[in-house]
């Protein structure tokens, strides 16, 4: 079951701009996420990806434009990293109970589903990067969110780890029917199940579907067996260079797939 293009939007941004300390960070961004959809946002460092996520969860207000969230929208948010101060003791089980207490059986089941049945009593600061990532995802899924936001969730993982993580996300989408908004700094290799890829650099540079290239022998060699099923290539079609300070809105509306300047 793929995403329905007719489903009502969970999140809809129209011409959203955000200034931070007087500096423009996002410039007239349009973005729609519908139920069941997987949307991947790629962009280099400093392209405003995190600010976009912060705007969607409501941590920063748009300076201009409109940002609509579906009524009663619940968001499961997986942060880029978790900076718990070492002065705070926190077991994995206690962390899973934030911000609401839940029955122990529910927590145990969630950790079991995440493939980490025995970590409940461990300190969260003792987990490896991959384990922490799975705990963060399990916690975000406890509420049965409408929208799962993953902010550079694969940053600390190697490529097999990323492939496994993407496989898990696909399974979550299939099981729960939630939408997924994935943020990644990897400009070329995206989650194959993405319905839509948006390349961000302050403004929306280009957007489209990822290319399913896993059947090509070259890419199969590049990704390795097993990973080719979850990874895909996104081919950019920019009409302008990445480093220009002030994008001309006229050029980005007409964007033929001309060249790939992000390579």
């Amino acid at each position, binding site marked *: 079951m793929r995403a329905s293009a007719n489903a009502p939007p969970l999140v809809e941004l129209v011409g959203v701009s955000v200034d931070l300390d007087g500096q423009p960070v996002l410039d007239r961004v349009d973005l729609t996420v519908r139920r069941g959809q997987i949307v991947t946002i790629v962009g280099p460092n400093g392209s405003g990806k995190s600010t976009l996520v912060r705007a969607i969860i409501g941590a920063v207000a748009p300076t201009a434009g409109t940002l609509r969230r579906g009524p009663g929208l619940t*968001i499961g948010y997986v942060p880029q990293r978790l*900076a718990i101060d070492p*002065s705070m*003791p926190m*077991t994995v089980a206690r962390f899973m109970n*934030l911000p609401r207490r839940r029955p122990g059986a529910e927590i145990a089941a969630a950790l079991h589903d995440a493939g980490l049945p025995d970590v409940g009593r461990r300190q969260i600061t003792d987990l490896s990067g991959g384990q922490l990532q799975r705990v963060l995802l399990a916690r975000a899924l406890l509420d049965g969110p409408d929208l799962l*936001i993953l902010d550079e969730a694969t940053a600390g993982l190697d490529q097999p780890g990323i492939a496994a993580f993407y496989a898990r996300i696909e399974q979550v989408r299939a099981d729960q029917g939630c939408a997924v908004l994935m943020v990644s700094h990897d400009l070329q290799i995206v989650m194959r199940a993405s319905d839509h890829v948006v390349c961000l650099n302050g403004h929306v540079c280009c957007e489209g579907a990822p290319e399913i290239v896993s059947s090509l022998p070259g890419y199969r060699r590049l990704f390795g067996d097993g990973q080719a099923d979850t990874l895909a290539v996104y081919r950019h079609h920019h009409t302008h260079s990445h480093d220009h300070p002030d994008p001309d809105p006229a050029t980005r509306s007409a964007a033929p797939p001309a060249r790939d300047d992000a390579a």
Partner: protein
Amino acid sequence: MPADFMIRAALAGIGLALACAPLGCFVVWRRMAYYGDATAHAALLGVALSLAFALPLYPAVIAVALVVAGLVTGLSGRHHATDTLLGVLAHGTLAAGLVAVSFVQGVRADLMAYLFGDILAVTRGDLLTIWLGTGAVLALLAWRWSGLLMATVSPEMAVAAGIRPRLEQWALNIALALVVAAGIRIVGALLISAMLIIPAAAARPLARTPEGMALATGVLGTVGVFGGLTAAWHADTPTGPTIVCAVAILFVLSVLASSLRSARQRR
């Protein structure tokens, strides 16, 4: 049978230790140590205002502490780092308080009691105020506990869950103002943040969860108050500083115990 003033002193000290327990944990977790200092120093300006204009002491102290908290929360991140602002406010208000008091006749000796506290001079009225303050702090923090923990762990995750971190910050600001007001008669403006930070720091190696750490902080703070009072009684030393010395010794013991334990585990 201990003297009445010793019983009052012990009850006042326990009240302060209990109020400091959950708040001190947040001060440590959120790296607000210097912020506790600034609020406590600002309290002296509140004392000066209360002496100069014959205002009730505790409301004046709470009001000034809240104004300082508002200034820090509102101004931080614009042009100056938070610790710079806190430095300006802490020492600016402390100095202003000392200068203001010098205009008021005959209170110089009294001021010493607010700088260093005088737990043995605590009256029944003070005791009631301190325990009301303690009750208010514990109730406020228990009410906001979950949201505060979430906002401390990750502001973004808190926002995504519908929690407003700036609102939760104000729960801490109010609790801090109440604790400073409660503590100014007991350990004085200069040593209140010691009661916030040291028991919490001593409790850290003993705890596995935030709640466990808050509980252990309350126990250690209470032990420190009893130990300090007893030592000051026998050695005839200033009581407030002796209590702080007692909790500092508990901190050293806790650190030693935890490093011994981890050394044994490694072997």
